């Protein structure tokens, strides 16, 4: 009896260490799965691709933004696409989708929105695959996925 108890505890010790490793790996696995699931749900019809080198910009910005049905771009937290660029207005512009076509309009921004080098001003302009959108100190390429 005296020899059995330490033996059992020794086995138990190793088992618990492995249980720990299993739990950690399982947690990581779950994390990764939810992350990839999130990506699949928002499979967008179009996205914005950053044309600038990220190292030239002194704020955090993603390489690409997927577009939903209605997107606000700006600095405030009510914008779906929020970028902390000082040259952006709090709500800078809006990109929305109507019947498979994306449109862009300026939301009264201070520095304006340029589409292929021309100001959007007060109009609502249709976006075509390959359009270049300049807002703030950034330039985005509009890509429409089929």
């Amino acid at each position, binding site marked *: 009896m005296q020899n059995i108890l330490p033996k059992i505890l020794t086995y138990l*010790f190793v088992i618990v260490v492995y249980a720990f490793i299993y739990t950690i790996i399982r*947690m*990581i696995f779950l994390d990764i799965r939810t992350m990839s699931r999130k990506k699949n749900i928002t499979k967008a019809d179009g996205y914005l691709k950053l044309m600038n080198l990220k190292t030239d910009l002194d704020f955090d910005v993603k390489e690409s933004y997927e577009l939903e049905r209605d997107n606000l771009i700006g600095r405030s937290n009510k914008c779906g696409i929020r970028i902390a660029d000082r040259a952006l207005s709090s709500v800078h512009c809006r990109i929305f989708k109507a019947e498979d076509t994306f449109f862009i309009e300026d939301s009264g921004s201070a520095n304006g929105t340029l589409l292929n080098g021309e100001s959007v001003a007060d109009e609502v302009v249709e976006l075509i695959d390959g359009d270049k959108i300049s807002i703030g100190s950034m330039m985005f390429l509009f890509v429409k996925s089929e």
Partner: protein
Amino acid sequence: MKNDNYIVRPLICILAVALLGGVLISINTGAVNPDTTMLLGGMCLTLAVVYALLRFFPLGDHYIFMITSMLGVIGVIMLLRLQTGHGQKQVIWFSVGAGLFLVTSLVYRFVKHWNKLNKLYVAGGIMLFMATALFGYSSGGAKSWLRLGGFSFQPSELVKILFILTLAGVFTNEYKKPMENDHKIKTFYNTKLGRNCAATFVAYLFLLFLLLQRDWGTAVLFFAVYIAFMAVYGEDKRFLILNGVAAVFVSIIGIKFMSHIQVRIATWLRPFDDIAGKGYQITQSLFAIGEGGFTGRGIGAGSPYYIPEVHSDFIFSAICEEMGILGGLAVIMLYFVLVYRAFKISLSTNNDFNKAVAMGIGVMLGVQTFIIIGGVIKFIPLTGITLPFISYGGSSMVTTFLALGILQGISARRREIEDEI
């Protein structure tokens, strides 16, 4: 909720391991040591507090600290079993390290421009090496210790972090357009070849210092980190050849002229030739691992005292003896997951400098573990470096926690950005 289970379960596992370890020590040594109980309890309390902080505040990755705590607890159990005094100091160092881990992660996260301090890192590294060369004293064949107040520490441990930050800065800082009145060196630095040369220069400078200290284990570690950076960012085959030639050249010189290295190589190839003398340490280590079998002799029931330096470099053999090869494999797997996390953070952050730093830290941890575990199981020649978080030693514990703190800071920054967008 099902997910809540997963939040507390790893913590419960760690507490259970600590409890089982304590009970096993008491049973197998035949005495209940109140110090052991207190120290294990204190350690569990520390890590529970840190874990709770990580959970309830958005401080980033949860896994790094969990894995580290498990490694730390296994180490402390082993040390308490070997010598209560060592275990006691280790618990204190672990707590200090965990505190520094949190502080570093916050500092790293909120102080910007870490990538613009390259000159400072190099200067700091050189100063630490110079101080070691002038005021240091030797222990275990390498003159790499510095005494400060009542503490002695290994400056090369700290330089490891500076080295990673330097290399990351050199390779990821933007290229400035050359001006007319710029110095030639500055113009050269802003080319791809210039960056490679700068990194090589810093790496070889640090390596020279380490070789002068005769700290070959750490030198190999630095070289491996440098090679990893060159492989990822260097994109130049000439440097690969150059480094290969240099490595072979230095190895040949070491094997031909340094008695220190000759002994290491001889005991690696033929440990049983001089079993009572030079091969004593490695053979005892092998006996201990063999004695342990699959599940070990039980914590406190083995006889690890035959192995010299069992509390620091050779703790892995003691773990294998008392927890078995399964316990040893579990430890290796924990390091695997830790290194995996480092690379995962490196891949998912979107700041180039942070990417490089996380990569460097991952490589450093992985290579360090490989060198020492490979050494004690006679897979590669033995070089004396510590097993991160398990070996007894304050400077190793604290600096590895600093490195992980940086990693934690990087992971928190990443989450912040994800949440905002």
